[in-house]
């Protein structure tokens, strides 16, 4: 149930799948999902691997948008690599420590800092899912690894209102009935407000970044990557759980309202580790854990 599924419909479907699984387990002693062969009885047919990367540090820096300009940005909360600042480049990341499980992920991830009553709040649970979904199954089967050094920015930090381009969502952990929203939601006491953000997964095959930091990547159209961005890579889904609930009037992000949620990703997975996970988890549609093995 803790899988990377943001919307209530998906949740419902998951609940049904889980129920079915439990029933099958009772009946046959197997957890068979879809048409898994008996030999693969415990394999879950979801194309996924993940990294859990707790909070590392805060700085008003952004090495993608404001490289070389410390103090030029609104406040960011960093996850993964522990040294990221305005000057960070790929070799800095490759030599950095990380907060991630697995430790091989020395990528840097950052988001605008979340404030409740003007006090910074850092997420208690930070998970980055890498998924083979959103494109047709034949495209998933041909997913390419995220290239080393790739930079991706998702979400619209400059949004002035929630609109059709808002792709971040807020919801409540353990309170699915509240539903997902483009802006902060009022979560029942004892639950956590959570943010979901999917990154674009179609790469132009050439550039590790672009002048506007967006145009080298694209979202799929009709379950396929557009011809301008033909290379399907794993879809990064950022899931942050903040240990706060209640009236969202108390909440803001360093970039503004809830719909300005955005995420920055600087890929520093060692190429062999990324490749292994794409080959063993994404392409064959197998749910893997942080170690990149079936979970």
């Amino acid at each position, binding site marked *: 149930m803790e899988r990377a599924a943001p919307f209530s419909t998906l949740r419902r479907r998951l609940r049904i799948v889980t129920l079915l699984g439990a029933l099958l387990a009772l009946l046959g002693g197997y957890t068979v999902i879809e048409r898994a062969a008996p030999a693969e009885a415990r394999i879950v047919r979801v194309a996924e691997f993940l990294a859990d990367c707790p909070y590392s540090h805060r700085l008003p820096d952004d090495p993608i948008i404001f*490289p070389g300009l410390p103090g*030029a940005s609104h406040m960011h909360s960093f996850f993964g690599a522990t040294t990221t600042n305005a000057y960070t480049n790929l070799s800095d990341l490759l030599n950095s420590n990380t907060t991630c499980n697995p430790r091989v992920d020395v990528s840097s991830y950052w988001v605008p800092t979340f404030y409740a009553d003007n006090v910074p709040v850092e997420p208690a649970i930070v998970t980055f899912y890498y998924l083979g979904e959103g494109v047709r199954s034949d495209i998933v089967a041909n997913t390419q690894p995220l290239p080393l050094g790739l930079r991706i920015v998702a979400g619209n*930090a*400059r949004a002035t209102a929630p609109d059709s381009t808002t792709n971040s969502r807020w919801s409540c952990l353990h309170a699915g009935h509240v539903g997902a929203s483009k802006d902060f939601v009022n979560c029942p006491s004892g639950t956590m407000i959570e943010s979901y953000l999917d990154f674009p997964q179609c790469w132009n095959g*050439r550039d590790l970044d*672009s*002048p506007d930091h967006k145009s*080298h990547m694209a979202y799929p159209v009709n379950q396929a990557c557009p011809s301008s961005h033909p290379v399907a890579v794993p879809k990064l889904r950022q899931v942050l759980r903040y240990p706060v609930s209640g009236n969202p009037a108390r909440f803001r992000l360093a*970039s503004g309202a809830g719909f300005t949620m955005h995420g920055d990703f600087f890929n520093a997975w060692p190429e062999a580790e990324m490749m292994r996970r794409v080959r063993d988890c994404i392409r064959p549609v197998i749910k893997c854990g942080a170690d990149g093995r079936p979970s």
Partner: protein
Amino acid sequence: MRPTAGIPATAALLVVVLLAGGCAAPPASAPGTPTGAPAVAGQSATPAGTPSASGPFNGTDIAWLQLTVAMHERVLPLLELVPERTAQPDVRRLAAQVRDTSRTELDRSRRLLDRSGAPKTNPHEGHDMPGMVTAAELTALGAAPDAEFRRLFGRHLRAHLEQSVRVASAEQRSGADPDTTTLAGTIARTGNAYLAELTELQP
């Protein structure tokens, strides 16, 4: 002799040395250039449809120009409020000087940004950015009585100038385009001079 332990350690050291060497490779690059350069100039061609920025501009130049345009656009309405909100001659004179300088610097920044070919999007729209007066603060200023106005104005102008000097100094260190780093030098210098005047006016 422990060859089995020694070889991996040597190999690891070699990897580190190679990585460090690769990063520092271009002797011409200033600190920070490796960070900025790939964004526009290095590694690969710019995407189709994006104006080429393959000139001497690096990522720091472009980020700083975009930021400088945004900061100057934001401070001008603050400066333009002064004549109608206060009769104090020294404050009016300083505001007029900073306004004229800001207009010139804004114009130079825009022209350099044009030459860089970078997108003119303002990455800071609606943000709670250091040194930038917010729309709500401007509204409050527009209604404040003279003494209160001068106090708030001094605070906002100081925040703007301090942030301008901070990022201009970083651009001087990490930028690549000579015209852009020269402009950064000018902005840092005038910013410091205005800060000194402001301190004399409002210690």
